[in-house]
């Protein structure tokens, strides 16, 4: 039964920072399970804002209002406890943010530590190995697990952050321009990694990079001034955009 329900569904989702201005306006979309969906659009179009609504990040800031519905496995996130939502919806940020005082292995397990869950030793080791392997970092760091995460390169740090999010076995992984602070080679690694990861987790990725959206996503959203202008198959959208604004953005006439 559960597999029939879409993993994530936006239903007239609105986000407003102040009473007058809405940053995200009535977005409705259904996200397919185990896919990568890209959210594109010019700066300030509300794509990050929409993404951050999914793990209730906006709850941290009392001025921000989120209206409408966001359904995770058919259950409205907006009426759930933030802590429960965030355990099921992982997030990776624009700048790699490993916890600076924690070692690599502590970083992977940080989700458990921060939830007050104490894993037995063998499970801890298994989780560290599984997660670092799934981000292709294991071979590089298996001998330095007790070193601080901040000693790693930018790309490695970002993979560590992905591993940290995966350790909680989330249903959905939100990524907010995860490669915009990385060099092309590190970016390529992460993109390849995401292709693999979509077998386990549904990925929603905000990106500024149209090439990236084309390379990795099966579906794309184009947002403009807070509206979801177009949502559909990535290949279709790039070859034959339905909306004039999408076309203008994709051909570089608007950015």
């Amino acid at each position, binding site marked *: 039964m559960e597999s029939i329900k879409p993993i994530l569904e936006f239903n007239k989702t609105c986000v407003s920072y102040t009473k007058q201005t809405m940053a995200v306006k009535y977005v409705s979309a259904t996200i397919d399970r185990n896919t990568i969906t890209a959210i594109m659009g010019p700066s300030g179009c509300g794509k990050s804002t929409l993404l951050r609504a999914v793990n209730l*990040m906006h709850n941290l800031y009392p001025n921000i209002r989120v209206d409408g519905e966001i359904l995770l496995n058919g259950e409205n996130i907006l009426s759930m406890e933030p802590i429960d939502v965030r355990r099921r919806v992982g*997030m990776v*940020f624009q700048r790699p943010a490993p916890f*600076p005082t924690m070692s690599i292995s502590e970083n992977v397990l940080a989700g458990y530590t921060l939830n007050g869950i104490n894993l037995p030793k063998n499970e801890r080791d298994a989780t560290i190995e599984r997660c670092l392997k799934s981000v292709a970092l294991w071979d590089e760091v298996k001998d330095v697990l007790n070193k601080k995460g901040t000693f790693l390169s930018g790309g490695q740090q970002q993979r560590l952050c992905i591993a940290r*999010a995966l350790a909680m076995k989330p249903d959905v992984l939100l990524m907010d321009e995860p490669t915009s602070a990385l060099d092309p080679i590190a970016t390529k690694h992460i993109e390849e990694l995401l292709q693999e990861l979509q077998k386990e987790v549904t990925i929603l990725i905000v990106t500024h990079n149209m090439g990236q959206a084309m390379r990795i996503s099966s579906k794309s959203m184009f947002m403009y001034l807070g509206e979801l202008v177009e949502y559909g198959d990535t290949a279709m959208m790039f070859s034959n955009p339905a909306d004039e604004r999408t076309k203008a953005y994709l051909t570089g006439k608007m950015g």
Partner: protein
Amino acid sequence: MKDKLMLWLICILSALTAVPLFAILGEVLLRGYDQLSWSFFTEPTPTAYRAMKAIQAGEPIPGGIANGIVGTMIMLGMAVVFAVPIGILCGAYLAENPKRRFAKVVSYLTDMLQGTPSVIIGIITYIWVVVPMKGYSAIAGSVALFIMMLPLIIRSTEETIKILPASLKEAGLALGGNRARVMLRVQLPAAFGGIFTGVLLAISRVIGETAPLMFTALGCSFVRFAVDKPISAVPLLIWEFFNDPNLQELIWGASLFLLLFVLTLNITAKYLAKKWNQ
């Protein structure tokens, strides 16, 4: 031409600001250096009579400032034990809830407390602690120092947490941690360097306080470890030496000790802050 003139002016003016510091350091060093010996740190203050005898015989004054050092350490220790956890909790609260009305009031009061003259803190502590306890004591002295340290630790904690990247806190919360755990496991450890520096600076700020201790610790001429009895402190000793013609020679050794202690704390704090920022 104009640029060169300006550069010279700036150089001269900045050199001028360093003059008082080096003048003070030099004067205290020259006058106090002779007195520093092992016994200066291990023996308590001599009585005026013994000191007078020594002066008449042309010998150096016996004894030292051990009673003051012990008293200062005991009072500072007690003040730090209470001021650090309370100050950090309060600073963390202020950094996390800057917009709450209660936080605004606390923040304002912290500023007021920081600006309160230490002599007033002394007299208040006298009323609050010395009078009910029916006597001067190390406890009373440490309460006065605690009150003086508190705003400094609160401010440094608050400022340090505020300048941490927001992504750190968000990353912690995004993993499902509650705010207390994220503060305890992520934000406070990341802010440790700044907070520790703040604590060192707070210690160096209050270690030389004399006025509040006059109302609370009073002073004591021998080494004492009891916390409910009057106790000595290095700055109190300097004041006592100044008032006793027979002991005036000891002023410089005590001053030098205090000055070097504060300088060491400051340099350590600077070094740690720099190291942490890398």
